[in-house]
Structures are given as C-alpha cells and as structure tokens.
C-alpha cells in the first residue's frame, strides 16, 4: 500500500556522518534550514534524513569536527543513456504534484561551453610581452554611446575636445555585478555589492526590486533596473544611479517574467518594491508598454527625459536566435548599452524546461551581434555587455576579445560569498544566507565580509586579465576589444568558427 510518494527515497544526496568523530553538538541541526539534521530524543544523538538534503554542503562546511561528508546518492537506476535519473525524478515529482518544474541558478545541463574551446595568444620574440607588475596596464572601461567621429579644437590652453560625448559609466575593471534583485537576495548582499562596487570603481545592478533607501548613497556605483513589474520605480530611483537598465529578458528564462513569491516579501522588501507584505510580486513576461522596437524607443526616451539625459540607458535581452537583428533595433532605438544574457545565467527561480532549453550560447550571440553592429556601422553607438556563466578571468578576457566592452558577473559573485549552486534559491531558505530574507539565515552574510570577498574576487580577476593582456603584448584592454585575431578555436567545426569569427588553432 502506497502511503507516500514513490520517489520519496530517491534522494539526490546522502549524508555520511562519521559517528566516531560526531560530538552531537547540533551545529548541523541549527545550520540546516531544510531540517535534514535533527536531534533524536529516543536515541539521544543527532540523526539525519537523507531525503531532505539538497546538497548545499552548509553542514559539512561548518561541522567543527569535520565528521560530515555530503555525497551523491550511490543508488543507481539501471543504466539508460536516454532515461537518466534526472528525467525520471522529474517525472516522479510531476506525477505527484502536476506542477511545473522549478529550478534555481543557471542551467547545469551539459551543453557546449565555447569559452573552453577558445585559446588566447601570447607574444614570442617579436612584439615583446609586457609585465603588468612593472608597467602601466589599462583596464579602465567606459560604457555608453560613442560619437561617429571626434573633433578637437586648438585653444591657447592646448587642444580641447569639441565633440559632445554622451553620458558614460566609468569602470576601473571591465566587470560589473549583474542584476540580482533585493528580495531574491537579501539586503546584506545588496549592501555588500554596493560597497564592493564603490571600492573597486565599478557598478552593481539593483535588479528589479527597487533600491533600499540606505543604499542611495552608493548611487554613483549603481545601475538601477526597470523591468516589466516596475517595482520600486519612481523619479528618485531613476535618478539615483549611474545608469538605467531596461530588462527585457533574462538568459535563464528568456521569454518569461519573474515571480517573487509572497513569502519572500517581508517588511523591508515590501518597502523597497513598494508592494504589500506577503503579496506576490509578479513581473509580466513582456513589458506591456513595449510590443515593438518603436515602443522600446518610447520607454528609452521616457527614461532619458526623466533623468534629463544625464545617464546612459541600457537594454538587456536574453541571447536568442535573432539576437543580432534585435540588438540592431535596440541600438537604433537609442540604447547606450546592450546587454546579452546567455542561457547559463543564474536566476532565483525559473521553470526548469525553459532554463535548460531556451536561448543560445552567449559566445555565439556576442560574436554575431558584434558583427552585425559593425556591418551596419553602428557598433560605436552602444556598448556591448555579456552576462551569463562567466566563471573566471579567462572567460572575461575571451568575451572582450570576441567583441564585448564589459562583462556582468553574478553567479561567480555568489560563489565568492559561499554559494554552492545547490539550486534551491526559490525556497527562500538558503542555508548560506544568500537567497533568503529569513532573519536567522540572512545574518549568515555579513555585508563587510561579503564586500571584502567580492572585492578580492574582482581584483584577482583584474590582475589575471592584466597578466594575460601583457602576455599578448597589449597594455590596454581597449586594444583587445573585438580583436578576434587574439583567439583561436580548438575542437570547433567550420560553422562554429565562422560564427565566432575566429580561426582554428594552427591557422
């Protein structure tokens, strides 16, 4: 007789507790927000329930005696190349509930990662390499529309730029913290991103959740986002940042909206989003005032009017099949920055099928968008930013060589503060204190310490980028932008090489 779901014991992980070393201190019990560990009164010791483990490794990380190891459940289904356990478990769950599969974080599916098939060049003998430790190495980046030509006039004080240049975001590193809304992650991490961005001379993005009143002072290092729900969007918010970003799409869930569940909306989130406590914050799939490029133009200029043309306006889309044509339209609609978000980009929650099956690799989209804008002679009208699954500084530098002006990072920023990619952000119970607004959990992130870790990460990547640039004999990131001759493909077919616009290694 079935009295529980058939999949109950098909858990993904098992908790291995070394009884020799366990001192029953109950740290694991307190740390696990999913209640996988518990105090067993009858046995007078700590016990666990493997079915509740999500594999976040929080208990393992904090166990004072190191007695815990979280392992993949070794129980194997019969080998079947088609019916992998992931698909079977999904079906069991849907048989139980009739629900749409929901996931957190970017797609874990095994799809090509083109960064790994691209190799950088280095100088040998001729064009000597440069040592960034002893010689200047420019990483500074300006995002915004650049004029078709510049005119300089001679004055008694020397030459002066005659051309009026539109508003720009000034970055000391070609990286920014990507949009993660206050609500999806908590205040401590928003503050940490704001502090780190200020310290680094870069910017962070608010995501669609408004800007907490105490973070307005970091405005010079903030991009404020406007998405379809328009949460917390008002005149002061629009004027608070260094730029405004219209979020049309997100790489993890192209074509659909967002949905912050009511239980994640506490007093502070409510104040910032300007919606009632406990009510769902639903962002519709499209902006219902944007059904065309002309409508997009209308919103871009509404935002420019609202800020009296002081800040650049960015438009973010998911990398999809027709990205080049769409990007061309976006640039012609007046956007100063275009953001391409790839399908490996993170999310607090996305329908699994969409996350794993919609969109194209951002590397291909980037190369094609850059080509298209160049072919049309409008590449300088807007800066190009890529987002979605940037794991290391080599990914960043390859993106820039392919044609990006800068890169958005978010998952890597979360990993820097402890995220283990367990993918349960949508539960609001993140044991690492990241994707949660529960008081007892969010205090696990200290804004100062998190800011330090984020600063460390970007500085480290910055140094690595300088080293790689120096190795290529370049002393400025500007010299690498769109310089695909510095890239060679390995293990790619002719179509892929053609799309990426790079030669195969050996050529």
């Amino acid at each position, binding site marked *: 007789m079935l009295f529980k779901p058939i999949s109950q014991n098909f858990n993904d992980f098992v908790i291995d507790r070394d009884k020799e070393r366990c001192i029953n201190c109950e740290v694991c019990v307190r740390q696990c927000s999913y209640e996988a560990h518990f105090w067993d009164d009858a046995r007078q010791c700590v016990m666990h329930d493997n079915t509740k483990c999500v594999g976040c490794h929080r208990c393992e990380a904090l166990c004072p005696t190191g007695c815990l190891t979280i392992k993949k459940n070794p129980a194997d289904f019969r080998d079947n190349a088609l019916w992998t356990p992931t698909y079977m478990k999904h079906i069991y769950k849907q048989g*139980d509930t009739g629900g749409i599969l929901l996931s957190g974080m970017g797609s874990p599916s095994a799809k090509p990662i083109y960064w790994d098939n691209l190799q950088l060049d280095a100088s040998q003998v001729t064009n000597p390499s440069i040592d960034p430790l002893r010689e200047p190495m420019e990483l500074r980046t300006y995002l915004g529309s650049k004029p078709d030509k510049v005119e300089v006039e001679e004055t008694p004080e020397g030459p002066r730029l005659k051309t009026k240049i539109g508003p720009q975001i000034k970055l000391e590193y070609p990286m920014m913290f990507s949009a993660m809304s206050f609500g999806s992650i908590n205040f401590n991490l928003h503050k940490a991103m704001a502090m780190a961005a200020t310290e680094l001379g870069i910017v962070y993005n608010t995501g669609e959740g408004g800007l907490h009143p105490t973070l307005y002072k970091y405005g010079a290092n903030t991009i404020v986002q406007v998405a379809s729900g328009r949460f917390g969007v008002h005149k002061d918010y629009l004027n608070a940042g260094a730029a405004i970003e219209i979020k049309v799409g997100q790489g993890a869930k192209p074509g659909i909206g967002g949905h912050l569940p009511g239980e994640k909306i506490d007093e502070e989130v409510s104040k910032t989003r300007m919606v009632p406590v406990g009510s769902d914050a639903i962002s519709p799939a499209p902006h219902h*005032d944007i059904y065309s490029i002309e409508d997009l133009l209308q919103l871009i200029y509404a935002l420019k009017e609202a800020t009296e043309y002081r800040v650049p306006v960015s438009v973010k889309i998911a990398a999809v099949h027709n990205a080049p044509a769409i990007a061309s339209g976006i640039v012609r609609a007046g956007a100063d920055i275009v953001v391409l978000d790839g399908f490996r980009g993170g999310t607090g929650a996305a329908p699994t099928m969409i996350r794993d099956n919609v969109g194209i690799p951002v590397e291909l989209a980037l190369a094609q968008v850059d080509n298209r804008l160049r072919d049309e002679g409008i590449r300088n009208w807007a800066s190009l930013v890529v987002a979605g699954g940037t794991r290391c500084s080599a990914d960043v530098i390859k993106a820039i060589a392919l044609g990006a002006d800068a890169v958005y990072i978010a998952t890597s920023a979360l990993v820097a503060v402890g995220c283990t990619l367990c993918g349960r952000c949508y539960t609001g119970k993140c044991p690492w204190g990241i994707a949660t607004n529960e008081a007892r959990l969010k205090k696990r992130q200290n804004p100062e310490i998190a800011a330090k870790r984020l600063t460390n990460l970007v500085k480290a990547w910055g140094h690595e980028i300088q080293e790689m640039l120096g190795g290529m004999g370049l002393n400025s990131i500007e010299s690498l932008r769109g310089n695909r001759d510095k890239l060679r493909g390995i293990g790619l077919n002719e179509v892929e090489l053609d799309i990426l616009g790079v030669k195969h290694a050996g050529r």
Partner: protein
Amino acid sequence: MGKKVTLDADGVYYKQLNEQIRDAIRNGAEEIELLNVRGQRYIGNAIDKPVKFLVHGVPGQDMAAFMRGAFIRVEGNAQDGVGNTMDDGEIEINGMAGDVLGYAMRGGRILVKQDVGYRVGIHMKAYMDKAPIIVAGGKAGDFLGEYMAGGAIILLGMDSTMPENAPITGRSLGTGMHGGVMYIRGEVPEYQLGPGLSFHPLEEEDMAFIRTHVEAWAKAFGKDAEEAMKGTFRKVKPFSKRPYGNMYVGTN
C-alpha cells in the same frame, strides 16, 4: 494664484518643449498652459512638483510617465501610455485616451471623459497610503486591469464613441489579477473575465467609493453623476493574492 506660463508648442520638438517646461518650473511656474500640442511626447514626465498643466491639443505618448504630484488637464484626446508608472497626481482627459493608460501606476487618479484603449491599468499597484484610480466614462479594449495588483478601475460605458452594441470591455478582463478592484457599469459577459475570476456583489462601501470618484469625473467633464450612479455595477476582484502560488514543483 501662482506664476503662470504659456508655451506655444506649435512646431516645437518634444525635447525642446519638455526642456522649456522644466525651465519654467525651475523658474517658479506653478501653472503651465500649453497651446497647439500635436503629439509631443513625455509631457509632464517625472515632474514632482504640484504644477498645474493645461494642455490644448493632443499630447503624445507617455504623458505624465513617472509623474509625482502634478495636475494635467487635456482639452482633447490623449495618445498611448498616459500615466505610465505614475506615482501621484491627477490627470483629466476631456476626450478619449489610447492604449496602456496607467501602466504600473502606483498612485494618483486619471479621469477620462470617454473611451480608453487596450491594456489599460495593467499591473496597477497600491502601496501604503497610495492607491491609483482610473475612471473612464466610455468603453475599454481587451486586457483591462491585467496583472492588477492594487488600486481601482471604474468603467462607466456611458460616453462612448464606440457602436452601441460594442461590449463595454474586451477579452481577458483582469487576467492574473492579484490585488485591487474593478467596477464596471453595465452588462459584462462572464466569458470576458480572465481565468478564475468572477463577479462579486457590491457592498455599501463600494457604492460610496464609486460615488466619490464618479462625482469627480462628472464635475471634471460637466456630466450628470446621478445618471451614472443609476446603472448597475459589476465588481471584479482577485480570487487570491497568490494566483500562481501552487503551480510549481521544486527541483534543481
């Protein structure tokens, strides 16, 4: 009576016109009369002072977007996007208004004498003491009040340029609604309602609320409030604050 400024918009591009408006406000204008307005966009955009605008002609798209606290009266029709993400203030349109009126509007009130277009009041939301209100004297297109999260829409279906047999509202009325309320005067077939929604009986306080705003509408456009109140109102409100709460099953 504050300082009054008159601007002739004849042949002036929207960018210059709005600059002139902002300059006038910076110089202390409290009342601005705009003459010969012919489609200039963004009039009143992000104005956060209690300025009184009188617009003669047809203002262009996104009038009063992000506006906070100004008053605009339009002697004529208005185009799409009136009151987009508006925070506060009052708008009177002595004519018809286009699509997407009051999109994501958070506060203030918009009175329209006659018809409004498609996608009106989508994602209106209320917060603390703010609750946006739209009153339209005519008929509305599809998707009225879709995703509505707060505030109120009152549709009278009286002063319309549409054929008499045209429905008062279109399809997908209130789809995804999770807050706020709509009052529609006259008959609305059930099939026009979004999934899960139904009509609710009106309480006394509903009638008092409707009266307050219908009287304001009647006063603004020289109409008879009593005649409007004679009709039967249908009330639409959400069935849940969490309409999509139980649709998902978590995995990783």
